[in-house]
């Protein structure tokens, strides 16, 4: 059920072929199709694929050992699906959308969210021309790897430190959302260094576009995650968020 049938190489080959066939470009979410040079696109695929494979294995293991968690897993996936469709206005006068990966990372740990995040990115790249297949590796790294790992790390640290459950959830989800766009900014900064200021100056420029817009949206996502997980705890008990499944 949770085994998307695609191969990275086919994806790259297909999008390469598409590049030859089509000439136009579209405005897109995260890093747009074709906006990473080939070697960078490939590098991000190489970095992201191991996380994806581990994520698939973790999902299969979870389905086997905890079949009763399927519905909760569907909830985590649906949350990402819903939130990444919502383009919200922000204080910078532009729009961006939340990512929703924090919720699932708190419930299941970061690895399953890599797979769920990639499925959502694929949906948007294939049907909506948002993001892209060539940039899928890079976008998956920022949203589906960096985001969930940040969320999980922040959640664990705050819980160890004895912080309030809702404060921990809020902080974890909001930071994961924000960090996704910080990573995107760094990814673009590395590829397009400023002629004068280099990588740092241009990363700062992209941070001004992505991260600044994202701040209120990240806060909203943190609050929404608190609301939903509060309901999950009400229904399934404290254990649902306390024990990350292995």
């Amino acid at each position, binding site marked *: 059920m949770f085994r998307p049938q695609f191969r990275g190489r086919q994806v790259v080959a297909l999008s390469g072929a598409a590049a030859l066939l089509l000439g136009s470009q579209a405005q897109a979410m995260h890093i747009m199709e074709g906006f990473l040079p080939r070697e960078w696109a490939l590098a991000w695929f190489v970095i992201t694929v191991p996380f994806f494979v581990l994520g698939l294995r973790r999902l299969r293991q979870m389905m086997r050992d905890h079949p009763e968690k399927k519905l909760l897993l569907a909830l985590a996936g649906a949350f990402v699906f819903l939130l990444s469709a919502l383009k919200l206005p922000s204080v910078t006068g532009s729009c*961006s959308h939340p990512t929703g990966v924090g919720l699932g990372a708190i419930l299941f740990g970061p690895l399953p969210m890599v797979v769920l995040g990639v499925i959502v990115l694929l949906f948007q790249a294939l049907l*909506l021309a948002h993001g892209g297949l060539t940039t899928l590796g890079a976008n998956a790294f920022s949203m589906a790897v960096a985001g969930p790992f940040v969320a999980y790390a922040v959640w664990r640290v705050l819980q160890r430190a004895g912080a309030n459950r809702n404060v921990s959830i809020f902080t974890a989800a909001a930071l994961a959302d924000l960090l996704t766009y910080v990573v995107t900014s760094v990814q673009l900064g590395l590829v397009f260094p400023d002629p004068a200021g280099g990588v740092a100056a241009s990363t700062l420029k992209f941070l001004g576009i992505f991260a600044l817009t994202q701040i209120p949206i990240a806060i909203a996502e943190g609050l929404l995650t608190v609301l939903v997980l509060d309901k999950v705890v009400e229904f399934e008990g404290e254990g649902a968020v306390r024990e990350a499944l292995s």
Partner: protein
Amino acid sequence: MKPSANLTPLGRLAIVLCIAALVILPLVFLKGAEFGGADGQAEAAITQIDKTYKPWASPLIEPASGEIESLLFALQAALGAGVIFYYLGYQQGRRRGRGSEAPEVRDAEL
């Protein structure tokens, strides 16, 4: 196990209002803003930094129009919301069916 500190109805309402305010306030206070996509701005920034860069790939399928694009976004949101509310309704019904037992007890029975 110590009882979980769930949100009070008032707490929930406060959070919902906060979220609404975060989304609505920019629209109220930034009257002249375009509210285009941040990604579009990034695209402009890239072409400004590196004027020679040409995107080497383009999307396989592009929505035929803005309307079709909204349709697909609405569909994506509807699917997500549908599953979320299925979960909430399912759990609500399950709990009704089982009375007011503590969640821990309920889980042990299953």
